[in-house]
């Protein structure tokens, strides 16, 4: 394999790792925001609707 092909293969692998990391961060962040929102709603409900 030539140097250029090795380099391109390596960069492609790097992009997969980086892409996965950001996607996972985005997915977990969204999941945590939803959980937080549902916890807040439950808190409001148990306090009698918040009024």
């Amino acid at each position, binding site marked *: 394999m030539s140097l250029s092909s090795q380099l391109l293969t390596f960069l492609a*692998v790097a992009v997969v*790792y980086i892409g996965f990391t950001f996607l*996972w*961060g985005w997915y977990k*962040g969204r999941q945590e925001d939803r959980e937080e929102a549902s916890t807040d709603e439950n808190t409001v409900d148990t306090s009698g609707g918040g009024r």
Partner: protein
Amino acid sequence: MALVPLDPLFVGTVVVYFLVILGIGYYGYVKTEDEVDFLVAGRSIGPVVGGATLSATQMSAGTLVGTFGIHYLLGFGFIWIWPGLWAGWIVSILLVAPQMRRFGRLTVPDFIAVRYGDDGADGDYARAIGAILIVIAYTVYLSAQITAGGLIFQSLIGVAQEIGMFIMVLTAVIYTSIGGMRASILTDFVQAVMMATGVLVALPVSLYFLGGLGGINAIFQSFQPSIVGQALSTADIVGFMAAFGFSIAAAPYEITRIYSMRDEKTVRQAIGITLIFQAIIGTSVALLGISMRVMFPNLSTPDLASVIMSLNVLGPILGALLIAAVFSAILSTVDSVMIVSGAGLAHDIYGKLINPDASDTRMVWANRISVAVLGTIPFLLALNKGLLGGLVQLIVVLQASMMGGMFFVPLVFGLHWKRANTLGGVTAMITGFSTVVIWHIGTEIMSFVPESLTSVIGDPVIPGVFVSFVTLVAVSLATRTPSPKCLEPFFKDVTVTDGGSEE
């Protein structure tokens, strides 16, 4: 003797760089009021600075001196260690880093003391064992950084390597002991940017001299194709990947950085950003290493390749930039390791076992004194290089193997397996660490490990992690389940009632 006469512009640039670093140390000193400030910068670090600090901490002399030198010696194929290392970061983002940030203490032994706290002393014995193992492994690591620093000073200004080592230790001890984590993280940011800029600027200049990638490829294909192909065996590459991968997922110096970040979201973003830094720097270092092989094929030691490049190829300003990047790589790792290692003595042993009532001011000073003491021991070790092996990269790998062998299993299983108990966790740390050390002695110093094994197992971290895993599972299953107080901080479905039972 210096390798070439130094241009005043070159010297000026390097001196300004050192002054900036010491200035940041002073800023950190002014801002540090208590131990939380000193050890985790008040937990105020955002994703960009966080990503930069993870990068600068991880990429040490091992990268800009050692890895550069290994590429010079063995060729481009060594670049494949990076995906192994990044696999460690993926394990970290999935299973370790956010969970540790949520736990939010000051040191890794803090985690050990809580999770493996059924030792009859509220986890203090387990904490002390973890702290001592960290101090030993990081003493080895620091000696590699100091060796590299000495080599660079020797090449630059012609002083004895020992004097160069002393200058490096002194600079790092001064700004780390006065500035603490805040100074360390801010200098890391400057240093990560310097590293990336240094190699990114050096790369096109070097490729231009050699006729681009095609030129380098043509030169090596004709007489030494392994330099642009793969010179290492699969077992060796897998061994290096495993050493770095296991160690980075459990590295105390990275976890202390993670404690310093604002929240779990920041931690995930910072890990993504550090991978970008690492891809840029890793690729550039690989190409620069093989470029140097074309330009200077007969260097006395491969560890000099990056220094020779900055002195002879890049001109005074670019050269100084790359040298500053190399110093950055060394100092940013040395400061982080000194803080973690010093905290092992000051926070985990002095503050928890010897003087639990110490005031905040006394604790900050205990940390400062520990940093100074723990800078001196590796300096002495670095004077006797034969003990650890010659090349910088190989000493770095040994430290990585020690860290992976002792912490990977207790950390990952402690966070995700409720049945892991104190006896299992502590014996796993000790057996993992001991296996790595015995394997290293048996392969590098006394040759009692059979060749049939070493040809398949490329690095001591593999038997280390295996033994640590078997010990943790076997001992935990054979002894009592852990108490709820050890599980509650890590498992949402476990709570401690007044009677101490699990719900």
